């Protein structure tokens, strides 16, 4: 059983595979999530880390400095899936041809933001998943194109105020609901898909990352990682925001193992969506008098998706 003897304290004693000194923002969820994923790598294993263009890439490998302790490849924005599938295939051949020793084990993990994953890199991701490369695609989902300055993505929640869906006199922010990418990748029938975020002890994230890395075949991890610039919360509030996303069922924790849907956490008392929306500046306009119906619409969508998920997990 993965993560059985898990303790955050012990985990934090492992050598970091993403070195400090990179240029990501204070209070950024992505780096916290990435470090947690990398902690799930067994120390004896090598890894090649892929990365779509985005905040993480431009801030972690700025020539001549790399924050990555493992081999790392950034190619372009929309092709992290395809790029890592090439690396993984090379590994297969070099093993087959005896150019790598029996003990030279490599694992393949690629990171992309929601722009590089849900949108521009969607085809490349879908192709890599369908072909079943032995790799993990980790989406650090912060719900907008943060690197270019907070433009909406298909992962942006409805009504969010972004720079391409600004709230204004005749606009309430983004019009559309968000795309449910975890389900879409699950429908590829890959061996492992999981949705996670930063929880207090990081156990959920750790266990899922470890399972994803050590499951043979293609795996997808959708990791909600708040962005203080885009979501406009107090930096110190990041863990509370993540907790509220889970407790309101906005971001449920689940996994799909060989096609079987498993709900990992059910709040004892599902909190109203306002609790998640309120601390974030991007939803400020929803709390103006007369906009109550917008929050109601948001709540209805959360409820509907939560019910769908419960149904899938109960089957």
């Amino acid at each position, binding site marked *: 059983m993965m993560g059985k003897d898990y303790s955050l304290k012990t985990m934090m004693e492992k050598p970091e595979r993403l070195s400090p000194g990179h240029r990501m923002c204070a209070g950024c969820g992505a780096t916290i999530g990435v470090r947690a994923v990398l902690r799930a790598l067994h120390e004896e294993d090598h890894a090649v880390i892929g990365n779509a263009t985005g905040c993480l890439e431009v801030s972690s490998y700025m020539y001549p400095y790399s924050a990555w302790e493992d*081999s790392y490849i950034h*190619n372009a924005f929309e092709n992290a899936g395809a790029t890592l599938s*090439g690396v993984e295939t090379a*590994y297969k051949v070099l093993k087959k041809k005896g150019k790598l020793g029996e003990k030279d084990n490599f694992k393949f993990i690629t990171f992309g933001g929601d722009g590089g994953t849900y949108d521009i890199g969607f085809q490349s991701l879908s192709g890599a998943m369908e072909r079943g490369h032995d790799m993990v695609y980790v989406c650090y989902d912060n719900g907008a194109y943060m690197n270019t300055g907070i433009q909406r993505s298909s992962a942006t929640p409805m009504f969010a105020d972004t720079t391409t869906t600004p709230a204004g006199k005749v606009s309430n922010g983004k019009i559309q609901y968000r795309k449910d990418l975890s389900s879409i990748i699950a429908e590829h029938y890959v061996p492992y898909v999981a949705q996670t975020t930063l929880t207090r002890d990081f156990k959920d994230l750790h266990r899922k990352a470890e399972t994803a890395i050590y499951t043979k075949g293609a795996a997808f991890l959708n990791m909600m990682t708040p962005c203080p610039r885009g979501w406009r919360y107090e930096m110190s509030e990041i863990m509370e925001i993540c907790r509220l996303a889970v407790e309101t069922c906005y971001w449920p924790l689940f996994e799909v193992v060989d096609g079987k849907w498993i709900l990992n956490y059910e709040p004892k008392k599902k909190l109203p969506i306002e609790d998640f929306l309120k601390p974030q500046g991007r939803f400020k306009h929803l709390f103006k008098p007369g906009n109550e119906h917008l929050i109601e619409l948001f709540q209805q969508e959360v409820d509907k998706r939560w019910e769908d998920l419960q149904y899938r997990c109960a089957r």
Partner: protein
Amino acid sequence: MSRSRDEVVCSKSIPERMSGNEAVSYAVRQVNPDVMPAFPITPSTEIPQMVSSYIANGEIDTEFIPVESEHSAMSAAIGAEAAGARTMTATSSAGLALMWEELLLAASNRLPIVLTLVNRTLSGPININCDHSDGMGARDTGWIQIYSENNQEAYDNYIQAFPIAEDPRVHLPVMICQDGFITSHAVENIELLEDAPVKAFVGEYNPEEFLLNPGKPVSVGPYAVSAYSMEAKRAQEAAMERAGEVILEVAERFREMSGRSYGFFEEYRTEDAKYLMVIMGSAAGTAKAAVDMLREEGHKVGILKLRVFRPFPEKEIAEAIRRSGCKAVAIMDRCESYNGCSGPLGSEIPAALFRNKVMVETVNYIYGLAGRDFTVEHVQSVFAELEEVAQGKKEAPNHKYIGLRE
């Protein structure tokens, strides 16, 4: 690099009949590359099909990645090559256009990927036949480009591509081009080489640095600020400049193995020629036939068939034209530039002549777009016009279309 530069195993010639696509696939079987990501597109589709058959029958241990687009084909090729695997792919037309962004990254990351380009026009209108607009569209992406006249050259150039690309002085990707359908599908005689000499010629791929080097991790594809980016680009250009000598060295080794000689270009009956035609690809065969006929009638005409387009052998072209002592040059473009004045060769050849102070009359012709026939009669009419221009009987037409429907 573990390849020994001095040892060349001579090969017997094996006479065979095959198409250009078959010839390249046969070369792939002999080279046995590690990884081939590819997406089908006419007229290059047969290459991934044939390679897949070799794999299915256990003849090679290449891993084929059936990617979902050409963009992903080049992306996966970059991943595989950076990881330390010898990697190749094949495409045409829109496929190359879709790869465009990645072509730049393959070159700037200094990855010696080999791509077979089966030249086909770019849309629109959509059309599956040959011209050079795909290759010419990628002429400034940092790839070495070598064009082939026929199946034999496609085969020979392909085998030379790996030692050129992987040479530590170069480390650049190479595009081996052949004309769609005309070369790729027409079956012609060919002299194949034996497996063992080809394998020895190409050697093992042992890169200095690669992702899958246990205990020696590397980072590939940095963000670079302005303080570093320009140096990276200059270093890349310097590699392209060095590629010229390596191309000639590899050609010399290839001659020792096969008995067939290659240079930057082929000069066909250019000695004492008064009128020259610069041409590239399969149409050179037609042009040579026309030159033979014209020579019999006493016309002093010749052909300069460009083989290496990138790096552009500017000085050598200018010198060859100077040496011939010709009065006028027809520059043949199987591609439009849409710049309002000339095709790509129509811009670059006159620039080469001017910079090297070779002052001859040049006329740029556009021919064979989207598979339009180009015949011996067309060549004859070009030379006739060139003669009139040189004798002052006619003003030089600029940017003239050949074989256009009136």
